[in-house]
């Protein structure tokens, strides 16, 4: 039986790990290589590493540093940040990434996503879907000035046969007050691909709520691991009490 995945998310600003609230006010939280080493020793299911400023600052991800992070990992790793070409993807796969996470390029160039899926297979291409509520509608958060609804964007990505979505609630990011259950529930109904739900985990009950009230099979979190004593294993033990399949 497939187990749900508990995925620490490392967000990077070009120098060190940072944690945002509502995608702003990044706070330094440490060294990425050290963090990867700790998560590996704890046997986490998977790791996601995102350079969240690469596209904004129009720079490429630091391959040397990402390589050092991946070297610590004997589990799958997804890497994102400033990916724009087939070559960029190849560079990341070569140093051991299993999946790449694409956001900005997916907003502007659907053809590229199709091309990437054809070349690397859909399982390799994960799309970051950052959602913000505006006038009670779910919209795609972006810094390009695009007015794009969640539904419209997902339809485009579905037509590309991408492999997975990382669905983040910008409104709940870093707040540690629980997940946007309605958003996750809605999203799971619009796609048959695996989804990683992100944004809002702060307490054990938030995770059991997420997995009992929605059909999501993976969760990504950062704040709870940076700012509390909880580990991915604690979450799994909590989920086990609710008969949700976990790998311990």
């Amino acid at each position, binding site marked *: 039986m497939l*187990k749900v995945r508990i995925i620490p998310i490392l967000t990077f600003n070009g120098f060190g790990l940072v944690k945002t609230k509502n995608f702003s006010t990044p706070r330094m939280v440490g060294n990425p290589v050290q963090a990867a080493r700790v998560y590996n020793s704890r046997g986490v299911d998977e790791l996601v590493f995102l350079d969240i400023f690469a596209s904004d600052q129009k720079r490429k991800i630091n391959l040397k540093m990402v390589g050092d992070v991946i070297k610590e990992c004997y589990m799958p790793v997804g890497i994102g940040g400033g990916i724009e070409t087939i070559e960029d993807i190849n560079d990341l796969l*070569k140093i051991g990434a*299993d999946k790449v996470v694409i956001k900005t390029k997916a907003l502007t160039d659907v053809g590229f996503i199709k091309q990437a899926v054809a070349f690397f297979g859909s399982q390799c291409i994960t799309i970051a879907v950052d959602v913000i509520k505006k006038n009670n509608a779910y919209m795609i958060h972006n810094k390009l000035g695009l007015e794009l609804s969640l539904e419209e964007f997902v339809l485009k990505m579905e037509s590309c046969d991408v492999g997975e979505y990382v669905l983040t609630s910008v409104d709940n990011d870093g707040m540690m007050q629980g997940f946007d259950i309605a958003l996750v529930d809605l999203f799971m109904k619009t796609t048959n691909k695996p989804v990683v739900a992100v944004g809002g985990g702060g307490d054990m009950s938030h995770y059991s709520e997420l997995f009992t009230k929605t059909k999501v099979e993976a969760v990504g979190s950062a704040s709870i691991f940076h700012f509390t004593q909880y580990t991915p294993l604690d979450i799994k033990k909590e989920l086990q009490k609710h008969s949700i399949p976990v790998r311990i």
Partner: protein
Amino acid sequence: MVAIIDYGMGNVASVQKALNFLKIESVITNDREQIEKADQLILPGVGSFLQGMKNLQSKGLDVLLTNEVVNKKKRFLGICLGMQLLAEKGTEPHENVGLGWIKGKVERIENIPLRVPHMGWNTVDVKINTFYKDVDHKDFYFIHSYHFVPDSKSVIAATTNYSIEIVASLQQENIFATQFHPEKSQEAGLTVLRNFFINA
């Protein structure tokens, strides 16, 4: 010496890292001489079946590997796409020929009530125990939308359940292959690699 075949289909570094961890000497290569000299071969790979075969063919690796593995019976491990390419036929994105070392076809996982790709940790049920000592019913990491459907059940070394039975591993003479990623499956995966390369 283990030769990890580099044919531009990703993820060779992770495989070598796992071998390094187990202190198994290896080289990442597509050089004929090095491949001929190696006593064991690994074909890793992620990506589409068609692209994988194209890349092998463009470097003449399909002919070379077939000679080394099928004719000379060199010990061989295929991982993920490296397992699927052993089939006679693939369907990703459309029908095309594979290496044909193991009779069967690679088909898209479809008409199931679960999500595709099959992505994450799933329990493996062992059928042929040669390289699965200590890891029967353990979880391994899968990430694939296509699966190998062999003509004969006798080559199935392990399966996993994803509402349908999916072939998790194949074994035929000197050929061993896994649909899951042993190099990404932490302790359980390292055990399989240790069983294949050291304890066998």
